[in-house]
Protein backbone atom coordinates (compact mmCIF):
# COMPACT_ATOMS: atom_id res chain seq x y z
CA UNK A 1 0.00 0.00 0.00
CA UNK A 2 2.73 2.40 1.02
CA UNK A 3 4.53 1.78 -2.26
CA UNK A 4 1.53 3.15 -4.12
CA UNK A 5 1.31 6.51 -2.38
CA UNK A 6 4.16 8.21 -4.25
CA UNK A 7 3.15 7.15 -7.77
CA UNK A 8 -0.47 8.05 -7.05
CA UNK A 9 0.57 11.46 -5.75
CA UNK A 10 2.53 12.02 -8.93
CA UNK A 11 -0.43 11.07 -11.12
CA UNK A 12 -2.64 13.36 -9.04
CA UNK A 13 -0.12 16.15 -9.58
CA UNK A 14 -0.39 15.58 -13.32
CA UNK A 15 -4.17 15.71 -13.20
CA UNK A 16 -4.02 18.78 -10.97
CA UNK A 17 -1.77 20.58 -13.47
CA UNK A 18 -4.42 20.02 -16.11
CA UNK A 19 -7.07 21.72 -13.99
CA UNK A 20 -4.77 24.40 -12.58
CA UNK A 21 -4.05 25.80 -16.02
CA UNK A 22 -7.28 25.21 -17.96
CA UNK A 23 -6.62 28.22 -20.18
CA UNK A 24 -2.93 27.61 -20.46
CA UNK A 25 -2.53 23.95 -21.24
CA UNK A 26 0.46 24.80 -23.42
CA UNK A 27 2.25 25.83 -20.23
CA UNK A 28 1.14 22.75 -18.30
CA UNK A 29 2.39 20.64 -21.21
CA UNK A 30 5.72 22.46 -21.21
CA UNK A 31 6.11 21.63 -17.51
CA UNK A 32 5.56 17.93 -18.17
CA UNK A 33 8.05 17.97 -21.05
CA UNK A 34 10.60 19.67 -18.82
CA UNK A 35 10.00 16.96 -16.22
CA UNK A 36 11.10 14.40 -18.81
CA UNK A 37 14.22 16.42 -19.67
CA UNK A 38 15.11 16.85 -15.99
CA UNK A 39 14.53 13.13 -15.40
CA UNK A 40 17.06 12.38 -18.13
CA UNK A 41 19.49 14.73 -16.44
CA UNK A 42 18.82 13.05 -13.11
CA UNK A 43 19.86 9.70 -14.56
CA UNK A 44 23.06 11.14 -16.01
CA UNK A 45 24.02 13.59 -13.27
CA UNK A 46 22.09 12.50 -10.18
CA UNK A 47 22.63 8.77 -10.46
CA UNK A 48 25.71 8.27 -12.65
CA UNK A 49 27.41 11.44 -11.39
CA UNK A 50 28.32 12.65 -14.88
CA UNK A 51 28.42 16.46 -14.65
CA UNK A 52 26.85 18.00 -17.74
CA UNK A 53 25.55 21.36 -18.83
CA UNK A 54 24.75 20.10 -22.29
CA UNK A 55 21.74 17.85 -21.87
CA UNK A 56 19.99 20.32 -24.22
CA UNK A 57 22.05 18.96 -27.10
CA UNK A 58 20.19 15.66 -27.04
CA UNK A 59 16.91 17.47 -26.41
CA UNK A 60 17.44 19.63 -29.48
CA UNK A 61 18.56 16.69 -31.60
CA UNK A 62 15.38 14.85 -30.62
CA UNK A 63 13.26 17.91 -31.45
CA UNK A 64 14.75 18.42 -34.91
CA UNK A 65 14.72 14.70 -35.67
CA UNK A 66 11.05 14.34 -34.70
CA UNK A 67 10.14 17.50 -36.61
CA UNK A 68 11.91 16.45 -39.79
CA UNK A 69 10.58 12.92 -39.44
CA UNK A 70 7.02 14.21 -39.22
CA UNK A 71 7.43 16.54 -42.20
CA UNK A 72 9.26 14.22 -44.55
CA UNK A 73 8.51 10.65 -43.54
CA UNK A 74 5.60 9.91 -41.25
CA UNK A 75 3.49 12.14 -39.02
CA UNK A 76 2.58 9.46 -36.50
CA UNK A 77 3.34 10.80 -33.00
CA UNK A 78 4.78 7.59 -31.55
CA UNK A 79 6.99 6.94 -34.56
CA UNK A 80 8.18 10.53 -34.10
CA UNK A 81 9.04 9.83 -30.46
CA UNK A 82 11.16 6.88 -31.53
CA UNK A 83 12.92 9.06 -34.10
CA UNK A 84 13.60 11.64 -31.38
CA UNK A 85 14.84 9.03 -28.93
CA UNK A 86 17.16 7.55 -31.55
CA UNK A 87 18.54 10.96 -32.46
CA UNK A 88 19.23 11.76 -28.81
CA UNK A 89 20.80 8.35 -28.22
CA UNK A 90 23.01 8.53 -31.32
CA UNK A 91 24.24 12.03 -30.50
CA UNK A 92 24.94 10.93 -26.91
CA UNK A 93 26.78 7.86 -28.19
CA UNK A 94 28.97 9.73 -30.67
CA UNK A 95 29.79 12.63 -28.35
CA UNK A 96 29.97 10.27 -25.37
CA UNK A 97 32.84 8.29 -26.87
CA UNK A 98 34.98 11.35 -26.26
CA UNK A 99 33.13 12.98 -23.36
CA UNK A 100 33.12 9.93 -21.08
CA UNK A 101 36.92 9.93 -21.09
CA UNK A 102 36.87 13.33 -19.41
CA UNK A 103 35.66 14.27 -15.95
CA UNK A 104 34.94 17.25 -13.75
CA UNK A 105 35.19 20.75 -15.18
CA UNK A 106 36.71 19.53 -18.44
CA UNK A 107 33.67 17.37 -19.00
CA UNK A 108 31.28 20.22 -18.22
CA UNK A 109 33.06 22.46 -20.72
CA UNK A 110 32.95 19.75 -23.36
CA UNK A 111 29.21 19.14 -22.87
CA UNK A 112 28.59 22.87 -23.34
CA UNK A 113 30.77 22.75 -26.47
CA UNK A 114 28.75 19.87 -27.95
CA UNK A 115 25.49 21.79 -27.45
CA UNK A 116 27.04 24.91 -29.01
CA UNK A 117 28.23 22.94 -32.03
CA UNK A 118 24.74 21.48 -32.48
CA UNK A 119 23.31 24.99 -32.20
CA UNK A 120 25.64 26.24 -34.90
CA UNK A 121 24.98 23.30 -37.21
CA UNK A 122 21.23 23.84 -36.91
CA UNK A 123 21.78 27.54 -37.56
CA UNK A 124 23.89 26.99 -40.70
CA UNK A 125 21.89 24.18 -42.24
CA UNK A 126 19.03 26.51 -43.16
CA UNK A 127 17.84 24.35 -46.00
CA UNK A 128 17.08 21.49 -43.64
CA UNK A 129 16.36 23.10 -40.28
CA UNK A 130 15.03 26.50 -41.28
CA UNK A 131 17.95 28.11 -39.44
CA UNK A 132 17.06 31.02 -37.19
CA UNK A 133 13.46 30.99 -38.46
CA UNK A 134 12.98 27.58 -36.93
CA UNK A 135 11.61 24.37 -38.38
CA UNK A 136 8.01 24.96 -39.41
CA UNK A 137 5.19 23.01 -40.95
CA UNK A 138 5.00 20.11 -38.50
CA UNK A 139 1.51 18.58 -38.65
CA UNK A 140 0.99 15.53 -36.51
CA UNK A 141 -1.42 12.69 -37.17
CA UNK A 142 -3.92 11.91 -34.38
CA UNK A 143 -2.67 9.94 -31.38
CA UNK A 144 -3.51 6.24 -31.92
CA UNK A 145 -5.17 7.49 -35.11
CA UNK A 146 -8.11 8.71 -32.99
CA UNK A 147 -7.27 11.76 -30.88
CA UNK A 148 -6.61 14.84 -32.99
CA UNK A 149 -4.20 17.41 -31.59
CA UNK A 150 -6.70 20.15 -30.76
CA UNK A 151 -6.22 23.89 -30.63
CA UNK A 152 -6.62 24.11 -26.84
CA UNK A 153 -4.09 21.39 -26.20
CA UNK A 154 -6.14 18.80 -24.34
CA UNK A 155 -4.87 15.90 -26.44
CA UNK A 156 -1.38 17.32 -26.34
CA UNK A 157 -1.41 17.44 -22.55
CA UNK A 158 -2.63 13.90 -21.95
CA UNK A 159 -0.39 12.52 -24.66
CA UNK A 160 2.63 14.21 -23.07
CA UNK A 161 1.55 13.16 -19.61
CA UNK A 162 1.20 9.53 -20.75
CA UNK A 163 4.67 9.55 -22.26
CA UNK A 164 6.10 11.15 -19.11
CA UNK A 165 4.47 8.47 -16.96
CA UNK A 166 6.01 5.72 -19.12
CA UNK A 167 9.45 7.35 -18.96
CA UNK A 168 9.12 7.71 -15.20
CA UNK A 169 8.08 4.07 -14.78
CA UNK A 170 10.99 2.95 -16.96
CA UNK A 171 13.43 4.98 -14.87
CA UNK A 172 12.01 3.60 -11.61
CA UNK A 173 12.79 0.11 -12.91
CA UNK A 174 16.18 1.18 -14.25
CA UNK A 175 17.49 2.77 -11.08
CA UNK A 176 16.57 -0.33 -9.05
CA UNK A 177 18.30 -2.67 -11.51
CA UNK A 178 21.86 -3.94 -11.25
CA UNK A 179 22.75 -1.30 -13.86
CA UNK A 180 21.22 1.43 -11.70
CA UNK A 181 23.02 0.22 -8.59
CA UNK A 182 26.24 0.17 -10.60
CA UNK A 183 25.70 3.79 -11.64
CA UNK A 184 25.36 4.81 -8.01
CA UNK A 185 28.53 2.84 -7.37
CA UNK A 186 30.37 4.74 -10.10
CA UNK A 187 29.05 7.99 -8.69
CA UNK A 188 30.31 7.08 -5.22
CA UNK A 189 33.69 5.66 -6.23
CA UNK A 190 34.83 4.98 -9.80
CA UNK A 191 38.07 3.51 -8.43
CA UNK A 192 36.20 0.94 -6.39
CA UNK A 193 33.91 0.08 -9.31
CA UNK A 194 36.99 -0.48 -11.48
CA UNK A 195 38.50 -2.63 -8.75
CA UNK A 196 35.47 -4.92 -8.73
CA UNK A 197 35.88 -5.43 -12.46
CA UNK A 198 33.22 -3.07 -13.79
CA UNK A 199 33.87 -1.44 -17.17
CA UNK A 200 33.29 2.06 -15.80
CA UNK A 201 33.77 3.83 -19.13
CA UNK A 202 31.18 1.70 -20.94
CA UNK A 203 28.78 1.91 -18.01
CA UNK A 204 28.96 5.70 -18.04
CA UNK A 205 28.57 5.74 -21.80
CA UNK A 206 25.48 3.51 -21.55
CA UNK A 207 23.97 5.83 -18.94
CA UNK A 208 24.73 8.83 -21.12
CA UNK A 209 23.07 7.17 -24.13
CA UNK A 210 19.94 6.17 -22.18
CA UNK A 211 19.77 9.71 -20.77
CA UNK A 212 20.26 11.06 -24.29
CA UNK A 213 17.38 8.96 -25.61
CA UNK A 214 15.08 10.26 -22.89
CA UNK A 215 16.14 13.86 -23.53
CA UNK A 216 15.46 13.15 -27.20
CA UNK A 217 11.94 12.05 -26.33
CA UNK A 218 11.40 15.31 -24.45
CA UNK A 219 12.63 17.23 -27.49
CA UNK A 220 10.41 15.23 -29.82
CA UNK A 221 7.38 16.05 -27.67
CA UNK A 222 8.20 19.76 -27.86
CA UNK A 223 8.39 19.59 -31.65
CA UNK A 224 5.13 17.68 -31.92
CA UNK A 225 3.16 19.82 -29.48
CA UNK A 226 4.36 23.27 -30.49
CA UNK A 227 4.63 22.25 -34.17
CA UNK A 228 7.81 24.27 -34.31
CA UNK A 229 11.46 23.67 -33.52
CA UNK A 230 13.58 26.71 -32.84
CA UNK A 231 17.30 27.11 -32.31
CA UNK A 232 16.48 27.79 -28.68
CA UNK A 233 16.18 24.04 -28.08
CA UNK A 234 19.99 23.94 -28.14
CA UNK A 235 20.38 27.01 -25.94
CA UNK A 236 22.71 26.87 -22.97
CA UNK A 237 20.00 28.43 -20.77
CA UNK A 238 17.80 25.36 -21.18
CA UNK A 239 20.50 22.95 -19.99
CA UNK A 240 21.38 25.25 -17.12
CA UNK A 241 17.76 25.66 -16.04
CA UNK A 242 17.26 21.91 -16.16
CA UNK A 243 20.18 21.53 -13.77
CA UNK A 244 18.75 24.14 -11.39
CA UNK A 245 15.40 22.34 -11.39
CA UNK A 246 17.17 19.10 -10.57
CA UNK A 247 19.16 20.63 -7.72
CA UNK A 248 15.98 22.27 -6.44
CA UNK A 249 14.08 18.98 -6.39
CA UNK A 250 16.92 16.74 -5.25
CA UNK A 251 19.56 14.96 -7.30
CA UNK A 252 19.54 11.21 -7.52
CA UNK A 253 15.85 11.06 -6.66
CA UNK A 254 13.37 10.58 -9.48
CA UNK A 255 10.53 12.16 -7.54
CA UNK A 256 12.85 15.04 -6.73
CA UNK A 257 13.40 15.70 -10.42
CA UNK A 258 9.65 15.83 -11.02
CA UNK A 259 8.88 18.04 -8.02
CA UNK A 260 11.79 20.40 -8.67
CA UNK A 261 10.66 20.98 -12.22
CA UNK A 262 7.03 21.64 -11.32
CA UNK A 263 7.96 24.02 -8.51
CA UNK A 264 10.56 25.89 -10.55
CA UNK A 265 8.33 26.32 -13.59
CA UNK A 266 5.34 27.30 -11.50
CA UNK A 267 7.20 29.87 -9.43
CA UNK A 268 8.93 31.13 -12.57
CA UNK A 269 5.55 31.53 -14.28
CA UNK A 270 3.77 33.16 -11.35
CA UNK A 271 6.63 35.46 -10.42
CA UNK A 272 7.19 36.56 -14.01
CA UNK A 273 3.46 37.30 -14.42
CA UNK A 274 3.22 39.30 -11.19
CA UNK A 275 6.45 41.21 -11.46
CA UNK A 276 8.03 41.20 -14.91
CA UNK A 277 11.07 43.09 -13.62
CA UNK A 278 12.08 41.27 -10.47
CA UNK A 279 10.99 37.69 -11.01
CA UNK A 280 14.58 36.51 -11.35
CA UNK A 281 15.12 37.69 -7.80
CA UNK A 282 12.33 35.40 -6.57
CA UNK A 283 13.81 32.44 -8.42
CA UNK A 284 17.29 33.20 -7.09
CA UNK A 285 16.05 33.54 -3.51
CA UNK A 286 14.15 30.27 -3.75
CA UNK A 287 17.14 28.35 -5.10
CA UNK A 288 19.44 29.86 -2.47
CA UNK A 289 17.02 29.01 0.34
CA UNK A 290 16.70 25.42 -0.80
CA UNK A 291 20.43 24.93 -1.28
CA UNK A 292 21.10 26.34 2.20
CA UNK A 293 18.32 24.72 4.18
CA UNK A 294 17.62 21.59 2.15
CA UNK A 295 20.88 20.62 0.45
CA UNK A 296 19.30 17.36 -0.69
CA UNK A 297 16.48 19.24 -2.40
CA UNK A 298 12.75 19.72 -1.87
CA UNK A 299 12.26 15.95 -1.87
CA UNK A 300 13.98 15.85 1.53
CA UNK A 301 11.55 18.37 3.03
CA UNK A 302 9.33 15.81 4.85
CA UNK A 303 12.38 14.14 6.42
CA UNK A 304 13.83 17.52 7.40
CA UNK A 305 10.58 18.64 9.01
CA UNK A 306 10.29 15.37 10.92
CA UNK A 307 13.83 15.79 12.18
CA UNK A 308 13.12 19.38 13.19
CA UNK A 309 10.02 18.38 15.19
CA UNK A 310 11.73 15.45 16.87
CA UNK A 311 14.86 17.49 17.49
CA UNK A 312 12.68 20.20 19.08
CA UNK A 313 11.22 17.71 21.53
CA UNK A 314 14.57 16.36 22.51
CA UNK A 315 15.98 19.85 22.79
CA UNK A 316 13.13 20.85 25.13
CA UNK A 317 13.64 17.88 27.41
Amino acid at each position, binding site marked *: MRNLIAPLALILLGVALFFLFPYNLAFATRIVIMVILVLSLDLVLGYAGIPTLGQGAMYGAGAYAAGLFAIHIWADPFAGLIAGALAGAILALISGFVLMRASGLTLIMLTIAVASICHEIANRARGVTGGADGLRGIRMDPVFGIFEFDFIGVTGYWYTFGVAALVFAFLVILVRSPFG*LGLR*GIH*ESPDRMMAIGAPVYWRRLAAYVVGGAIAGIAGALTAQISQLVSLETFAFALSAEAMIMLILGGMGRLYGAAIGTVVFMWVHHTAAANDPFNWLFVIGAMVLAVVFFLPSGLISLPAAVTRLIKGGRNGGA
Partner: protein
Amino acid sequence: MAGLEVRGLTKNFGGLVVSEDIDFDLRPGDRKALIGPNGAGKSTFANLVTGILEPSSGTIHFDGRDIGRLGEARRVKLGIAKTFQVTTLFPKLTVRENLRLPVLERENRGFRMLRRADGDPKVEAEVEALMAQFDLSKLADRQVANLAYGQQRLVELALTLALKPRVLILDEPAAGVPSGETHLITDAIANLPANLAVLVIEHDMDLVFKVAQSIVVLVQGRILTEGTPREIAADAKVRELYLGGGHG
Protein backbone atom coordinates in the same frame (compact mmCIF):
# COMPACT_ATOMS: atom_id res chain seq x y z
CA MET B 1 51.97 -22.71 -14.15
CA ALA B 2 49.40 -21.74 -11.58
CA GLY B 3 49.63 -18.41 -9.84
CA LEU B 4 51.30 -15.12 -10.44
CA GLU B 5 54.72 -14.90 -12.04
CA VAL B 6 56.49 -11.55 -12.32
CA ARG B 7 59.78 -11.24 -14.18
CA GLY B 8 62.07 -8.25 -14.57
CA LEU B 9 59.28 -5.81 -13.75
CA THR B 10 60.41 -2.21 -14.07
CA LYS B 11 58.51 1.05 -13.80
CA ASN B 12 59.89 4.50 -14.21
CA PHE B 13 58.15 7.85 -14.14
CA GLY B 14 60.43 9.92 -16.36
CA GLY B 15 63.89 9.52 -14.90
CA LEU B 16 62.63 8.22 -11.55
CA VAL B 17 62.83 4.46 -11.27
CA VAL B 18 60.23 3.26 -8.73
CA SER B 19 60.33 -0.45 -9.51
CA GLU B 20 63.46 -2.07 -10.85
CA ASP B 21 63.86 -5.56 -12.21
CA ILE B 22 61.49 -7.27 -9.78
CA ASP B 23 61.11 -11.06 -9.90
CA PHE B 24 58.23 -12.31 -7.83
CA ASP B 25 56.06 -15.43 -7.57
CA LEU B 26 52.79 -15.99 -5.79
CA ARG B 27 51.24 -19.48 -5.79
CA PRO B 28 47.81 -20.64 -4.67
CA GLY B 29 47.79 -20.89 -0.89
CA ASP B 30 50.77 -18.58 -0.45
CA ARG B 31 50.75 -16.02 2.35
CA LYS B 32 53.38 -13.49 1.45
CA ALA B 33 54.13 -10.05 2.80
CA LEU B 34 55.83 -7.17 1.07
CA ILE B 35 57.62 -4.81 3.43
CA GLY B 36 59.99 -1.94 3.05
CA PRO B 37 60.50 1.70 4.05
CA ASN B 38 58.30 4.52 2.79
CA GLY B 39 58.83 5.19 -0.89
CA ALA B 40 60.24 1.73 -1.52
CA GLY B 41 57.69 1.24 -4.29
CA LYS B 42 55.36 -1.20 -2.52
CA SER B 43 52.12 0.38 -3.67
CA THR B 44 53.55 0.91 -7.14
CA PHE B 45 54.26 -2.80 -7.31
CA ALA B 46 50.66 -3.57 -6.28
CA ASN B 47 49.35 -1.15 -8.88
CA LEU B 48 51.48 -2.77 -11.57
CA VAL B 49 50.18 -6.22 -10.71
CA THR B 50 46.53 -5.12 -10.60
CA GLY B 51 46.79 -3.08 -13.79
CA ILE B 52 46.25 0.41 -12.39
CA LEU B 53 49.72 1.24 -13.75
CA GLU B 54 51.36 -0.08 -16.89
CA PRO B 55 54.90 -1.44 -16.55
CA SER B 56 57.79 0.18 -18.42
CA SER B 57 59.29 -3.26 -19.01
CA GLY B 58 59.12 -6.78 -17.69
CA THR B 59 56.35 -9.37 -17.75
CA ILE B 60 53.45 -10.44 -15.54
CA HIS B 61 51.97 -13.87 -16.11
CA PHE B 62 48.91 -15.27 -14.38
CA ASP B 63 48.29 -19.00 -14.78
CA GLY B 64 50.71 -18.89 -17.70
CA ARG B 65 48.86 -16.08 -19.44
CA ASP B 66 50.56 -12.76 -20.15
CA ILE B 67 48.44 -10.14 -18.40
CA GLY B 68 50.97 -7.29 -18.36
CA ARG B 69 48.99 -5.13 -20.79
CA LEU B 70 45.45 -5.97 -19.66
CA GLY B 71 43.31 -3.29 -18.07
CA GLU B 72 42.39 -3.30 -14.42
CA ALA B 73 38.83 -4.54 -14.89
CA ARG B 74 39.98 -7.44 -17.09
CA ARG B 75 42.46 -8.58 -14.45
CA VAL B 76 39.76 -8.49 -11.80
CA LYS B 77 37.68 -10.77 -14.01
CA LEU B 78 40.64 -13.16 -14.17
CA GLY B 79 40.74 -13.25 -10.39
CA ILE B 80 43.21 -10.63 -9.20
CA ALA B 81 41.64 -8.36 -6.58
CA LYS B 82 42.99 -5.78 -4.16
CA THR B 83 42.00 -3.66 -1.22
CA PHE B 84 43.21 -0.08 -1.13
CA GLN B 85 45.62 1.59 1.27
CA VAL B 86 42.85 4.04 2.13
CA THR B 87 39.50 2.28 2.42
CA THR B 88 37.71 2.65 -0.87
CA LEU B 89 34.03 1.77 -0.66
CA PHE B 90 30.69 3.18 -1.77
CA PRO B 91 30.17 5.44 1.26
CA LYS B 92 26.49 6.33 0.75
CA LEU B 93 25.41 2.79 -0.04
CA THR B 94 24.49 0.37 2.70
CA VAL B 95 26.72 -2.53 3.70
CA ARG B 96 24.35 -4.86 1.90
CA GLU B 97 24.50 -2.81 -1.31
CA ASN B 98 28.27 -2.57 -1.06
CA LEU B 99 28.47 -6.35 -1.09
CA ARG B 100 25.70 -6.85 -3.65
CA LEU B 101 27.58 -4.86 -6.29
CA PRO B 102 30.70 -7.06 -6.54
CA VAL B 103 28.58 -10.23 -6.62
CA LEU B 104 26.52 -8.80 -9.50
CA GLU B 105 29.67 -7.69 -11.31
CA ARG B 106 31.33 -11.07 -10.86
CA GLU B 107 28.25 -12.69 -12.41
CA ASN B 108 28.44 -10.18 -15.30
CA ARG B 109 25.01 -8.77 -14.60
CA GLY B 110 26.07 -5.14 -14.39
CA PHE B 111 24.36 -4.12 -17.64
CA ARG B 112 20.97 -5.60 -16.72
CA MET B 113 18.49 -2.77 -16.70
CA LEU B 114 15.06 -4.32 -16.29
CA ARG B 115 15.46 -6.63 -13.31
CA ARG B 116 15.72 -5.68 -9.70
CA ALA B 117 19.24 -5.58 -8.29
CA ASP B 118 17.97 -7.28 -5.13
CA GLY B 119 15.73 -9.71 -6.97
CA ASP B 120 17.93 -12.80 -7.14
CA PRO B 121 17.71 -15.00 -4.01
CA LYS B 122 21.06 -16.63 -4.80
CA VAL B 123 22.84 -13.28 -4.87
CA GLU B 124 21.07 -12.18 -1.70
CA ALA B 125 21.98 -15.43 0.06
CA GLU B 126 25.61 -14.93 -0.87
CA VAL B 127 25.55 -11.36 0.42
CA GLU B 128 24.00 -12.56 3.69
CA ALA B 129 26.64 -15.26 4.04
CA LEU B 130 29.45 -12.74 3.50
CA MET B 131 28.01 -10.41 6.12
CA ALA B 132 27.70 -13.29 8.56
CA GLN B 133 31.28 -14.36 7.89
CA PHE B 134 32.63 -10.91 8.77
CA ASP B 135 30.16 -10.27 11.58
CA LEU B 136 28.48 -7.45 9.67
CA SER B 137 24.90 -8.76 9.62
CA LYS B 138 23.71 -6.31 12.26
CA LEU B 139 25.04 -3.42 10.17
CA ALA B 140 23.47 -4.63 6.92
CA ASP B 141 21.30 -1.58 6.31
CA ARG B 142 23.66 1.07 7.63
CA GLN B 143 25.49 3.39 5.23
CA VAL B 144 29.15 2.41 5.30
CA ALA B 145 30.10 6.06 5.78
CA ASN B 146 28.61 5.77 9.29
CA LEU B 147 30.65 2.74 10.33
CA ALA B 148 33.81 2.69 12.40
CA TYR B 149 36.99 2.51 10.34
CA GLY B 150 37.80 -1.01 11.42
CA GLN B 151 34.34 -2.12 10.33
CA GLN B 152 34.78 -0.35 7.00
CA ARG B 153 37.99 -2.31 6.55
CA LEU B 154 36.05 -5.52 7.09
CA VAL B 155 33.43 -4.42 4.57
CA GLU B 156 36.19 -3.82 2.04
CA LEU B 157 37.65 -7.23 2.71
CA ALA B 158 34.22 -8.85 2.35
CA LEU B 159 33.57 -6.87 -0.81
CA THR B 160 36.84 -8.02 -2.31
CA LEU B 161 36.20 -11.65 -1.38
CA ALA B 162 32.76 -11.38 -3.00
CA LEU B 163 34.68 -11.31 -6.29
CA LYS B 164 35.92 -14.84 -5.47
CA PRO B 165 39.47 -13.84 -6.35
CA ARG B 166 42.37 -16.29 -6.66
CA VAL B 167 44.98 -13.66 -5.93
CA LEU B 168 44.28 -11.13 -3.19
CA ILE B 169 46.49 -8.11 -2.64
CA LEU B 170 45.95 -6.28 0.64
CA ASP B 171 47.52 -2.82 0.60
CA GLU B 172 48.19 -1.94 4.24
CA PRO B 173 45.03 -3.59 5.59
CA ALA B 174 45.66 -2.30 9.11
CA ALA B 175 46.54 1.27 8.16
CA GLY B 176 44.39 3.74 10.09
CA VAL B 177 42.73 1.01 12.14
CA PRO B 178 42.84 1.72 15.88
CA SER B 179 45.16 -0.75 17.61
CA GLY B 180 42.22 -2.17 19.57
CA GLU B 181 40.57 -3.27 16.32
CA THR B 182 43.65 -4.65 14.53
CA HIS B 183 42.88 -8.16 15.73
CA LEU B 184 39.66 -8.03 13.65
CA ILE B 185 41.78 -7.62 10.54
CA THR B 186 44.36 -10.20 11.55
CA ASP B 187 41.64 -12.75 12.32
CA ALA B 188 39.91 -12.05 9.04
CA ILE B 189 43.14 -12.57 7.10
CA ALA B 190 43.87 -15.76 9.02
CA ASN B 191 40.43 -17.08 8.03
CA LEU B 192 40.81 -16.45 4.30
CA PRO B 193 40.21 -19.48 2.03
CA ALA B 194 43.24 -21.76 2.15
CA ASN B 195 43.85 -21.97 -1.61
CA LEU B 196 43.76 -18.19 -2.08
CA ALA B 197 47.08 -16.56 -2.91
CA VAL B 198 47.53 -13.60 -0.57
CA LEU B 199 50.03 -10.75 -0.71
CA VAL B 200 49.99 -8.32 2.21
CA ILE B 201 51.70 -4.97 1.91
CA GLU B 202 52.16 -3.70 5.43
CA HIS B 203 54.07 -1.46 7.80
CA ASP B 204 52.73 -3.16 10.90
CA MET B 205 55.38 -5.80 11.67
CA ASP B 206 53.18 -7.55 14.25
CA LEU B 207 50.56 -8.19 11.62
CA VAL B 208 53.16 -9.26 9.04
CA PHE B 209 54.74 -11.78 11.38
CA LYS B 210 51.32 -13.14 12.33
CA VAL B 211 49.97 -13.75 8.84
CA ALA B 212 52.92 -14.22 6.47
CA GLN B 213 54.80 -17.44 5.73
CA SER B 214 57.24 -15.57 3.56
CA ILE B 215 58.41 -11.96 3.50
CA VAL B 216 59.80 -9.95 0.60
CA VAL B 217 61.77 -6.82 1.46
CA LEU B 218 61.66 -4.01 -1.06
CA VAL B 219 64.11 -1.10 -0.92
CA GLN B 220 64.24 1.72 -3.46
CA GLY B 221 62.27 -0.27 -5.98
CA ARG B 222 64.46 -3.39 -5.77
CA ILE B 223 64.05 -6.63 -3.89
CA LEU B 224 66.60 -6.67 -1.10
CA THR B 225 65.86 -10.16 0.14
CA GLU B 226 63.15 -12.75 0.59
CA GLY B 227 62.72 -15.30 3.34
CA THR B 228 60.67 -16.74 6.16
CA PRO B 229 59.73 -14.37 9.00
CA ARG B 230 62.46 -15.94 11.11
CA GLU B 231 65.12 -15.40 8.44
CA ILE B 232 63.99 -11.85 7.82
CA ALA B 233 64.00 -11.04 11.54
CA ALA B 234 67.56 -12.33 11.76
CA ASP B 235 68.75 -10.63 8.58
CA ALA B 236 71.41 -8.04 9.33
CA LYS B 237 70.62 -5.82 6.34
CA VAL B 238 66.92 -5.73 7.20
CA ARG B 239 67.63 -4.97 10.84
CA GLU B 240 69.90 -2.17 9.84
CA LEU B 241 67.26 -0.85 7.47
CA TYR B 242 64.48 -0.91 10.04
CA LEU B 243 66.34 -0.13 13.23
CA GLY B 244 68.93 2.16 11.70
CA GLY B 245 66.39 3.92 9.50
CA GLY B 246 64.14 4.66 12.45
CA HIS B 247 61.22 2.62 11.11
CA GLY B 248 59.35 0.18 13.27
